């Protein structure tokens, strides 16, 4: 008893496998379900009774014109918005009432349309902060830099180095993110999500504002993670070209509703989609 208490105080136990749990195989089974979601801002209905079913291991894209409610839907899934109606289910568990940081701990990470990095911090620190839910030190251990704190730091650095390798951020490690280009900032944003080793990554317009080259780099990285680790991606995107290239499945939204759903090829040729994009 006493030994356990001491261990908790001074030398938190850290099991690596906890963080690197093995992913299940890709399947038709839904991993994430957003059901009958409605979001309102005052009188404006941003999302109107939308149901989205995300399957295990897929790369799902949500597209649609501006104001279609895509980002709002993402915000509901990540817990930032409270929907007026509907629920969010992750791996069979209703997470509708869970605060955002808890959802991250469960395995839902996200990136942002406009850089939401911590601008005063270095790239390294920005990514490490993503590991906050998995910290295994308490305040006292941190204050005296006890073994648990040191070991955790090393573990965290290894994890970070892994994503730095993956996203080729080596030379920017010690740069303050405020001084980086938008493209690099997006990469850091993704790195921060990936270091959490999530089961589902929600991406909000990852390609917006990037050069063609940057888009290709980013797409390659996403595909690599998707294929090697079996991570599920839900991507809100504007750029149809990228989406049709990499998505397994596409959902099209307009004016807060889902207007089409299916394989990239069939969706792109759906007349309602063409109408919404071109005619709308």
């Amino acid at each position: 008893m006493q030994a356990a208490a001491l261990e908790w105080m001074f030398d938190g136990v850290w099991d690596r496998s906890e963080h690197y749990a093995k992913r299940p195989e890709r399947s038709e089974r839904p991993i994430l379900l957003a059901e009958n979601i409605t979001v309102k801002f005052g009188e404006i209905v941003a999302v109107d009774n939308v149901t989205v079913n995300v399957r295990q291991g897929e790369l799902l894209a949500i597209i649609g014109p501006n104001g279609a409610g895509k980002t709002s839907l993402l915000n509901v899934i990540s817990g930032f918005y409270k929907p007026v109606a509907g629920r969010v289910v992750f791996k069979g568990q209703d997470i509708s009432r869970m605060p955002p940081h808890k959802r991250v701990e469960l395995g839902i990470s996200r990136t942002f349309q406009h850089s939401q990095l911590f601008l005063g911090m270095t790239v390294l620190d920005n990514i490490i902060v993503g590991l906050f839910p998995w910290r295994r030190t308490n305040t006292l251990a941190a204050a005296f830099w006890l073994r648990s704190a040191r070991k955790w730091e090393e573990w965290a650095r290894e994890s970070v180095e892994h994503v730095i390798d993956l996203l080729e951020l080596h030379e920017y490690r010690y740069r303050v993110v405020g001084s980086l280009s938008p493209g690099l900032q997006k990469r850091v944003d993704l790195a921060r999500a990936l270091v959490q080793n999530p089961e589902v990554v929600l991406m909000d317009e990852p390609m917006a504002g990037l050069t063609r080259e940057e888009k290709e780099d980013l797409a390659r990285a996403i595909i690599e993670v998707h294929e090697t680790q079996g991570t599920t991606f839900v991507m809100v995107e504007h750029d149809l070209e990228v989406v049709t290239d990499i998505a397994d499945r596409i959902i099209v939204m307009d004016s807060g509703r889902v207007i089409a759903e299916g394989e990239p090829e069939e969706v792109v040729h759906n007349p309602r989609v063409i109408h919404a994009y071109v005619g709308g």
Partner: protein
Amino acid sequence: MPAGVFKETYGEEIAIFRYPIHYAGAALGLLFALMLPILVGPYYMLLAVSFLIFLVGTVGLNITVGLAGLISLAHAALMGMGAYVTAFLAEKGVNILVAIPVAGLSAAALAFILALPSFRLKGYYLAMASLAAQFIIEYIFALIDPDQYVPIPDEAKYLGGIYLGRGLPLYYTTLAITIVSILTAVNLGRSILGRAMKAVRDNDVAAEVVGINVYYVKAIAFTIGGFYAGLAGGLYALYSSGIGWEGFTLEGSIEYLGMVLIGGPGRIVWGSFLGVLLVRTGWTLLESTLADLIVSYVAAALKYLILGGMIAGFIIFEPEGLIAVLRRFKEYLRLWPYSY
């Protein structure tokens, strides 16, 4: 990063002393701190003691304000909490060296309660909540201390026959506690907790969404700040023959905030160091000089004008504080005479 230094482990990279110059600097600094009583007279030694006490308090506020970005106007009240707890325990016969950490903990507990509004509030609202808290605590002090003076019994200030309340023992005791405080503060700053605080400061909305329990981090930042304030209060009780609540008023809290904002918010050690050196100790010295030179009311008005002007000026022109100015000056010297 100086050339020719290579790190082999991640641990080395985030160590406090990373380069030989750090070791040399720390050793020299320590040597200076230890020899200070020899170098200066007893008055300056006591001034140094009061410098150290307020340094501990300011380091705490720098964690709350500088790292976590939570404006607190109740820091002097928290320091008062520490001082009163120490006085109470000393009265009960508890040794002051035991009482001081307890003072820190009780101030931390109070700070935790004060942090509750921060769960729902940010920025200006939090500043107002802490302002209200400052006045409420002041009021409670006035109720529990109707004589405006609580003596600290000398009997509590002994350690194995040595009286810690004055002279060298006072200086070295304060120095030791200050050094431990600073080291723990630095460790907290470089830990994941410290990084999470910075994240909350830079962008609390995003911090929540990327998995940081913002409430928890805010509460802990407030609590840690309170702990150091309480520690400073305890040290103050050691240094002083008695305490009165008039020493822990809003003016004290504003002065604390001024020390953080002028010195360098977010730079826990050096920012606080410069802030206290300039705003508190420097001012005391300047006041002593001015008092003989000019009419006293001008000097008195100057106190308000200069401190207020510096707080506003630094926020507008150099939000990173004096430390940033010094750093730029250092860079300039390093590159001199080639300015590029």
